[in-house]
Structures are given as C-alpha cells and as structure tokens.
C-alpha cells in the first residue's frame, strides 16, 4: 500500500519532468537537424554568421546593462533611505513596485507611444536614441519588482540600521555610508537582482517590437517566421542564457548572509 | 495480546518494557522500563537531546519502538497508529490549527469522532471554562497570547477524555511569570480530572514542583525514577545528583573507613556515611547541597573555614560563594531580617551536617 503510493509519486514526478524536458529535448534535436544526413551544428553556425544576430544580441545585452545600472541607481538609495529614514513612505514605494503587475508591458508601452509620440512635448519616439531611452525606462519598470525585492531582503539581512548607526558614530557621511559600507555588503543581492533582470530583458519582445528597436526578442520572432532550424538554435541559446543567469542567482544566494529580522 | 502480562500490569496506566529506539545506527532510547500508575503525574526530566521527546513520541505513536513494548491500560499499543490510541497531547509550540477559532480547535477531536454538534458545543464550553478562557471562543490563534494558546491546546487535548495526557515541554516557550501560573493551573486541572499525565521538561524546578514522581533521563536511559524528595535528597547516581539542584564538590582523602573520618582541605571530618569497599588513602568527592550548609561553627557538624568570593541576592534566599582550599562552595541562606550576609573577602566558618553529604569515589 505504502509502496504503491511511493511508486505513484515517482510516476507523477516523472510525468512532470517529461512535460518540462520534452520541449527542451525537441528543440535541441531540432537545432541539430539542419542537415538531412545526420546531426550537425550547422544551424548554430548559420546563426552566428548572421550579422543581424550579432547586432541584435549585442544591442539587447547593452540595453540590459543600462537597465541594470539605471535600476540599481534608482532602487538602492531609495530602499535604503525608506528603510532607515522615511518609513512612512514605505507603503507608497511598495505600491509603485507592484504597479508593473497591474499594468502589463503592452499597456505601458502603449502609454509611452502616446505620451512621447513625435507630435508631443517630449518627442522621444521620433529619434532612435529617444526610443532607446524609452525602452530602457520600460525595462527598468519591468525589473523594478525583482530589484526591489532583492535589495530589500539584502538590506534586511545585513541589518542596515545597525551598520549605519555604527558608521555614523565613527563619523562617516551619508554618501560614504551608502557607497563604502551598504553597497559592498548588499552586492550579492544587487547582483542576483541584476542577473534576474538580465534574464528577463534579454529576449523581451513586446516593448522592443512596439518601439521598433533592433532587439534580440523581435529578431528571434522574425527568424522563427522565416526559417525552420535556426530558431531552434536561438531558443537553445536563449534558454542557456536564462539558465546561466538564474544559476548565478542561485549560487549567489548561498553567499548571502541569513535573513535576520530587523523589527519586532 | 499477552494475557499474563496484561493481568499482571492491570493497574498500570502505562507500561514501557524494554523499549529501545534507534535512528540509523544511533541508539537514542536505551532499554527503557517505566511503569506509571493510574492518575499519577509523572515528569520526564533530562538535559536537551537525552531522548525525552522520543519517548513521548513513541507513546503517542508518532514513532515506533525498534524493540520493546508499550502498554496503555494493559493494552499493547506498540504498533497502533496515533489516532487509535486515545491520548491527548500538548506541544511546546502549541500546534493550534491556525485556520480554526479557539472553540473549533477544542472541538476538533469531537467532530472527528462524529459527536453531535450540540454535545460538542457543550463540551467545548465546559473545557474552555476549565482552562479559564470562557469568552474567547471565537478568537483565532493569532489573536491569542502564548499562555492563552497553550491553554486552548490543553483544553483541546482534554476534550476527548483521553486515557492519558502527554505534554512535551509545554511551558518552555512562555514568559517566566505565565510559566509559573500555568504550571500550577495544569497541576490543578490534572488533580481535578485525575488523568494520568506524562510531562516532559528539562527544567528541574518544574519537574520537582509539579510531579508525583520524576524519571530522570540521561543519554537515553532512566537513571532514577522516584518522588521529587527521593530524587533531590537521595540521588541514585552522580548524574542525578549534579543535574537536579546545585551541588558543591570537595576533594577529600579517606583517613579511617571504620569511623568514617576523612581529610578535607584544612579540616578533618568525622562520622560520614561511606559507600562500601573503600580503603584508607582513597580519594573521595564530598558533594553537598547549598542549603545544607550553615554559617558559624556548630558542634557535631563538620566545620570548615573559607573566604567569601561573591554574594548573590535572590529575594527570599541569599546565595554566597566561598573558597575552601582550592574548591568553590555555594551556600544558600534564608534572607531573615536579623542576619546580615557576609561580605566579599571576609573569612567565615561554615558547618555541614555530615548526614547531608553525598560521598562518592573521586573520578
């Protein structure tokens, strides 16, 4: 009786594993099947030889880095100051961070297209530099929940209040405290938020497409419509990137100090 | 079922015989024998990690003994599931169901037993009154204080009129004040209901003050099972002596086995009760309770001289530490307004009644 239960459990788990592995296996097999006479890496070779691949991927990577930079600069001081000196602002910040859940990317970018159209006061969509800025802002919005959570738990774990009090007693100025004491101590959290952001942003489609940016997500989509085997190779690559980024997040989690409750 | 065994132990509410429990290769409970009479309040006392919880969990049915048998009211329950044993249990963490009100928690066992709603209500009201929580029926666990939660848990455990009540360190998570009052309340309720109770604790004061009998455990074994008085005054082993209460130990050398005289630091003591089989020149340890020592030199007692190193004030009791030779001795004296305690650095005489000393062979 107990044995059958146990067997049943493993069967259920195996079904689950199959559901999640089949798409990966199929795609991998597909990506290797470009030649009729056996498996080959030709699909990957073609992908890497495509100048659009190089340009779109590096464009998206660059945008992702900008997103991470802007996001960090916006989030870290805010979370720190709200935690220590402006606790009454906390509910407002929490609400703002939740906004992306209620306003999905497509609506946000719709708003951008309207508000910053070439006939508006700030005609950002008129130039490609302006559109890049809009894309970065959109991605920062997407990344906000991840970055905020990561930094907030990080600050809680190092007991930022005590560190700050100690540093203040020793005569450190606020800017020095943030850059020399707080930031190095929550580097692990910031990095894991950054990797998560990278994974989310690198193959994002809707915003890039509606802002007509030459990004990686729309590129995959275009290739997918036109070709058979190359998109499979691109999927494997993109899965590999996501996996690496998330793997790094997991590894970083091991290095972060255990969460200590700051209040109560 | 073994009829001979069951008739012989007919008046035992709980009988453990030869119970051994291994986790992997590690023997956590070693050959345990224990017999509890109906209506008794028994404490299982021991340091943390000695296997108390494991014993309780085996009685409850959450773990099965590797070997040995557990009889409840003469019935062998060793292999029964927890829900077939009709026991009540109170956990250190309260373990109240967070999705149910206090009343629903107390009534849960009755509902499972398919009792009629009206009867459940009556019984729940009765139980909440017993633990002094009338009026809090509709509160949820997160709306109750720790002490209140534990009383709900007690009511829940008792609602089904179980054959026996098991408590695993029920007071450890509570504040000192509540711990004291709840301790008394538990004992009162137990006496009122006359229910056989097994109370696990690592707090010797709890065990001694509440129980009819105490089982002192050490690394999986029961070292002594007896009344609080016996445990305290006549500890059976060195472990029991040192774990229960405070002991001061003096090194001594045996001078004469016949007259019971030994040499301690600066003095010679006479008329000690010695264990068998000692010879002249043996090294001994003399252990003594803090309250068995008096200040001043009294005739007939062993008299020693020492220097006071510290004085601690505990309300009704004053605890003085002093050095005799190389040994530190702890003395408790009542805080009567007449006496003034000695001060640090002072040299004082102390007297010890030889009969209150435990003499052991030195390690």
């Amino acid at each position, binding site marked *: 009786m107990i044995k059958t239960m146990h067997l049943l459990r493993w069967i259920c*788990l195996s079904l689950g594993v199959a559901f999640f592995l089949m798409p990966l296996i199929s795609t991998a097999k597909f990506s290797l099947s470009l030649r009729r006479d056996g498996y080959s890496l030709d699909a990957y070779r073609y992908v890497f030889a495509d100048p659009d691949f190089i340009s779109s991927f590096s464009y998206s990577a660059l945008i992702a880095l900008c997103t991470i930079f802007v996001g960090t600069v916006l989030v870290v001081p805010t979370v720190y100051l709200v935690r220590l000196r402006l606790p009454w602002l906390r509910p407002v910040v929490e609400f703002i961070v939740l906004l992306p859940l*209620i*306003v999905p990317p497509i609506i946000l970018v719709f708003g951008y297209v309207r508000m910053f159209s070439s006939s508006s006061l700030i005609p950002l969509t008129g130039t490609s530099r302006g559109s890049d800025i809009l894309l970065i802002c959109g991605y920062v919005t997407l990344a906000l929940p991840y970055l905020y959570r990561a930094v907030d738990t990080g600050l809680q774990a190092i007991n930022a209040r005590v560190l700050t009090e100690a540093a203040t007693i020793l005569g450190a100025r606020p800017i020095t405290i943030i850059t020399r004491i707080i930031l190095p101590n929550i580097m692990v959290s910031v990095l894991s938020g950054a990797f998560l952001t990278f994974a989310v942003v690198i193959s994002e489609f809707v915003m890039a497409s509606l802002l007509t940016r030459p990004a990686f997500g729309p590129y995959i989509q275009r290739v997918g419509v036109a070709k058979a085997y190359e998109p499979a190779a691109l999927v494997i690559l993109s899965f590999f990137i*996501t996996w690496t980024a998330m793997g790094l997040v997991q590894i970083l989690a091991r290095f972060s100090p255990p969460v200590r409750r700051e*209040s109560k | 079922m073994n009829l001979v065994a069951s008739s012989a132990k007919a008046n035992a509410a709980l009988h453990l015989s030869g119970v051994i429990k291994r986790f992997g290769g590690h023997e956590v409970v070693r050959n345990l024998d224990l017999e509890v009479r109906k209506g008794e309040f028994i404490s299982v006392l021991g340091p943390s990690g000695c296997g108390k919880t494991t014993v309780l969990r085996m009685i409850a049915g959450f773990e099965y003994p590797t070997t040995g048998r557990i009889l409840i009211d003469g019935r062998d329950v060793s292999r029964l599931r927890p*829900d077939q044993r009709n026991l009540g249990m109170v956990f250190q963490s309260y373990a109240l169901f967070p999705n149910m009100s206090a009343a629903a928690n107390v009534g849960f066992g009755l509902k499972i037993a398919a009792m009629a709603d009206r009867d459940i209500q009556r019984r729940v009201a009765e139980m909440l009154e017993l633990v002094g929580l009338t009026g809090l029926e509709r509160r949820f666990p997160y709306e109750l204080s720790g002490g209140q939660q534990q009383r709900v848990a007690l009511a829940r455990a008792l609602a*089904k009129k179980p054959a026996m009540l098991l408590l695993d360190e029920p007071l450890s998570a509570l504040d000192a004040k509540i711990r004291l009052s709840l301790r008394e309340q538990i004992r009162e309720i137990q006496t009122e209901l006359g229910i056989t109770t097994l109370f696990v604790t690592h707090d010797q004061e709890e065990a001694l003050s509440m129980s009819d009998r105490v089982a002192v455990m050490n690394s999986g074994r029961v070292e002594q099972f007896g009344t609080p008085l016996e445990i305290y005054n006549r500890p059976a082993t060195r472990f029991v002596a040192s774990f229960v209460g405070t002991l001061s130990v003096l090194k001594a050398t045996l001078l004469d086995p016949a007259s019971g005289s030994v040499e301690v630091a600066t003095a010679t003591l006479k008329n000690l009760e010695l264990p068998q089989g000692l010879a002249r020149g043996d090294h001994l340890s003399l252990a003594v309770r803090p309250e068995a020592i008096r200040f001043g030199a009294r005739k007939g007692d062993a008299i020693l001289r020492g220097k006071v190193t510290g004085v601690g004030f505990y309300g009704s009791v004053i605890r003085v530490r002093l050095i005799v030779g190389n040994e530190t001795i702890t003395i408790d004296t009542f805080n009567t307004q007449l006496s003034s305690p000695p001060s640090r650095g002072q040299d004082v005489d102390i007297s010890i009644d030889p009969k209150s000393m435990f003499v052991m062979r030195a390690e």
Partner: protein
Amino acid sequence: MRMPRRTEVSLSEKEVAELGISKPSELPITQRASALRRLDWSALIGVAPFFIFALVMMVAPTVALIANAFVDQQGHLTFGNFADLNTPEVTGAFAESIRLSAASAVLGAVIGLGLALNVGRGIGSTQVRSIVMTFCGVASNFSGVPLAFAFVATLGRLGLVTAAIKAAFGIDIYAAGFDLASFWGLTVTYLFFQIPITVTIMMPAIDGLRRDWREAASILGASSWQYWRHIGLPILWPSLLGTLALLFANSFGAIATAYALTGYAVNIVPILLYAQIRGDVLHNENLGAALALGMIIVMAFANAIYLVLRTRAERWLR
C-alpha cells in the same frame, strides 16, 4: 566568503526596545505629526529620482492612457468608447482571453500544487526538491518568443512529440483536432511557466505546514485524509487562490508567446491591442485606450484578490 556578523557593533533591536529608546519608525501617532513638520529633506532628495521616474515613466503614461479612454476623437468627454467596444471582435477577445487565462491558471495551479506537494511532502528527498526548485526558478522566467518556438519543435505539425505519438499509437493529433496555434495549444504552452510559478509560490506555504499540526490532528483521531480536508488544504487555500489570481493576471497580460505561436490567429485582448497599436485596426485611437483600460481593470481586480489573500495567508502562517 561569508559576510562578517555585525550585530555586536551596537545594541540589538531587542536591547534598544528594552531600554525604552523609541526609534523614529515606531513613534506614536501624535509624535509622528510633529515629525512630519520636521521633514527629513536630505533623505527626501535622495528618494526623489525614484519617485520622479515612477511618476513620469509609470504613472503618467498610464493615467494619460486611461484619460484617453474617456475622450472622443474631437477631444470631448465621452463614454462612447466603451459602447463602441461592444463589437463581436472585442467582446470575443475578452471572452477568449478570460477563458484562456482561467484554463491555464486553474490547470497550472492544480498541477503545480500537486507537484509541489509531491516534491515537498511525498518524495522526501532534499536533492530532488532542490533540483525541482532551481528548475522552476528558471522555467518561470522562460517565457515569450523562445518558449513558443520550443513548443513548435515539440507539439507543432513537425514536432518531435507529435511524430512520436504518431509512431507509437498511430494517432495524428492534428487530424484529431489538436492545433498548437489554438486555445488548447496556447493553454498547454502557458502551463510551461504557470506550473513553475505555482511551485515557487506554493512551496514556502507547504513548508509552512508544521509537522505539529499533522501530529496534533492525528492524535485527536483524524486520518490523513481528514487532516488534509480540515487543516492542510484550508491553510493552503488562501495561498492557492492568491496564486490562481496571480496566474490569471499573468496570462491575461502575456502576449509574446501567443503572438509568436499564432500570429493574429487567436483573438485575445493583448494581441488585439498589439494590432491596434501597430496599425489602428479599430480605426479609432481612443478605442485602443478603452481596450487598455478594460485590461487594466481585469488585471487590477485579479491582483487585488492576490494581495488580499496573500496577506491572509501570511497572517495564518506567521
């Protein structure tokens, strides 16, 4: 390298509390009012960029869009846009979106809960558990265009599994009515991220089920089934409903997967909106705004349910 412990640098929170020193965050209401008058200006300047960003890049575009929904093409205030939304195409899109979100949310929550219970409780292996959790962390972020093409390679007309089923059972699933670029095809594809999201949210809740509760129930006479019926599932219920709402919102707002998989073949709200933004298919700019507002309302509703239920779940499991 482990972070050095720093608590000994200064008084712990508890000590501070015991000494009766109140911290700024814990001032009683009356004192807070006077604290408001002495605003911490330097700190406010520090958080200003964040709030300006939120205002300009998040709130303003959304509010402007919502305002547009109440304006006609000449700029007059009107509710006509909502009346104009009442076309078969739009109502059909909402119906299909809600059906799709509901189906993928319910299936994702049920299967995900089963998987989480199985891994968290049934198979008592910490290794299996940690592998599953890591994988779910990745899979819940693996959506959009790549996911769509992975499923094309699997269950598309030439997909590996499609071919395998044909070879093994002689069934052509496409002849039998299945189509990846259809309602059920999308639902199955969405499950690839809906299930892992459920697992990552429900696992902590399942861990929150304490062994004591199970034991207390069993010693009170409850069978394993009765434990789940009266205690286990009721405790998980708020988290599960909350997850359901989150999954619903998640798939309601998702477009990349659906677009890559079906193009414009499936009529759901985000794809309709996408087409509208690209080419004004509704022939009225402000109709698009009204469509967006409808979407925001559905999403806000679902997320409000999620947040309320999460609060309740946390209160219980504290």
